[in-house]
């Protein structure tokens, strides 16, 4: 199955920065190449470089020494890229509203118009559903993993609520219900290769930025507030968008496994919406009120990268074009 496949191959570099990372990773730890100068942090080259650095903390890559994860020179290079990414996000966002105000807006009912789920519901073709799943697979095949890094960094009520939530994400003790596995099963039902990392070559930078932001927040304790802000935003929006995607997918001739992931999320994330706001965020901000600004940043920054991916997909789909870099990888039958 997709979620227990071997480490993926190293992706092809997309420019000098990702080339520096892949060239380093092919050698032994301790021999990192120098980081070239970079400016376009919201682009394929830098986002892939960040993605490569972060994946060392999840599954690594086939043929790459696991010792690279904490190689000081590579960690330093990653830090420079991260600062560039975070600075860019803060520039783009400017002053962000407080967390309560942002969440209040997110709770406003929406019919999904202008979102990928709304587009797929109204006029989605099977190839566009495949592209959506391929782009989202970078996160959903490790669903909940980045947020798990918040567990040892929260305490008391917030930690207890977070663990209860994550237990559900990981299937409540039933391997066949692990959300990442439901996503892999759904990919298979749409003829997509569900192997971990199989869709990275096809993924545009926006798809990597979505998951890079979670990894950035997850790997820095200083950003535990932002990580939980990002998590809250995902959980608040998920139930309605999942309902639209169930409708979108069922319009086509697909087995139940081809929409079960989203069907599960209609109910699961209605619960998680409550738990993450009332159980996790309320407790976190009561116990550590100084995290408010970081929570607000996480909410806003995750909205920015989600919107970037939505714009990339919709902007191309509306012109009948692919929103990916290449065709998604299909199952070899």
């Amino acid at each position, binding site marked *: 199955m997709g979620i227990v496949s071997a480490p993926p191959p190293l992706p092809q570099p997309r420019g000098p920065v990702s080339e520096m990372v892949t060239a380093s990773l092919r050698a032994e730890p301790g021999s990192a190449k120098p980081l070239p100068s970079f400016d376009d942090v919201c682009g394929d080259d830098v986002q892939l470089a960040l993605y490569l650095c972060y994946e060392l903390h999840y599954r690594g890559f086939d043929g790459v020494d696991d010792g690279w994860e904490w190689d000081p020179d590579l960690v330093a290079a990653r830090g420079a890229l991260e600062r560039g990414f975070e600075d860019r996000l803060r520039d783009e966002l400017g002053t962000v509203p407080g967390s309560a105000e942002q969440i209040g807006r997110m709770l*406003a*009912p929406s019919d999904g118009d202008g979102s990928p789920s709304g587009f797929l519901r109204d006029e989605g073709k099977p190839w566009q559903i495949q592209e959506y799943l391929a782009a989202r697979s970078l996160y959903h095949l490790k669903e909940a993993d980045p947020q798990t890094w918040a567990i040892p960094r929260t305490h008391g009520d917030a930690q207890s609520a977070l663990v209860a939530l994550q237990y559900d994400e990981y299937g*409540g003790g039933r391997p066949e219900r692990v959300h990442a596995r439901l996503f892999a099963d759904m990919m298979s039902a749409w003829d997509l290769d569900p192997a971990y990392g199989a869709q990275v070559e096809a993924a545009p930078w926006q798809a990597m930025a979505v998951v890079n932001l979670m990894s950035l927040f997850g790997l820095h304790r200083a950003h535990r507030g932002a990580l939980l802000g990002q998590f809250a935003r995902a959980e608040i929006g998920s139930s309605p968008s999942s309902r639209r995607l169930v409708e979108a997918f069922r319009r086509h001739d697909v087995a139940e496994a081809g929409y079960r992931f989203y069907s599960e999320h209609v*109910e699961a994330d209605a*619960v998680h919406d*409550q738990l993450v706001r009332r159980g996790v965020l309320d407790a976190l901000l009561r116990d550590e009120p100084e995290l408010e600004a970081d929570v607000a940043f996480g909410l806003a920054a995750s909205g920015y990268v989600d919107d970037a991916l939505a714009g990339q997909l919709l902007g191309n789909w509306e012109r009948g074009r692919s929103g990916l870099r290449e065709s998604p990888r299909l199952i070899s039958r």
Partner: protein
Amino acid sequence: MSGSEPADVTLPQGRGPILVRGPVTVRLPDGSVVTSERPTVALCTCLLSERYPFCDTSHRRHVRSAK
């Protein structure tokens, strides 16, 4: 879990679902019975849910129209 423990129920602040520690068995007015094995179950109170008796966040429409 011990069957003798009292049920753990959280009422909503304003509109929203009732949260119940799962698993739960829900008896509906028409005599049918549904179950949920989630660790926490959100029960619809606005009657708008398409997944009734379970919440699907449809109360957000209710919240907006009520204001």
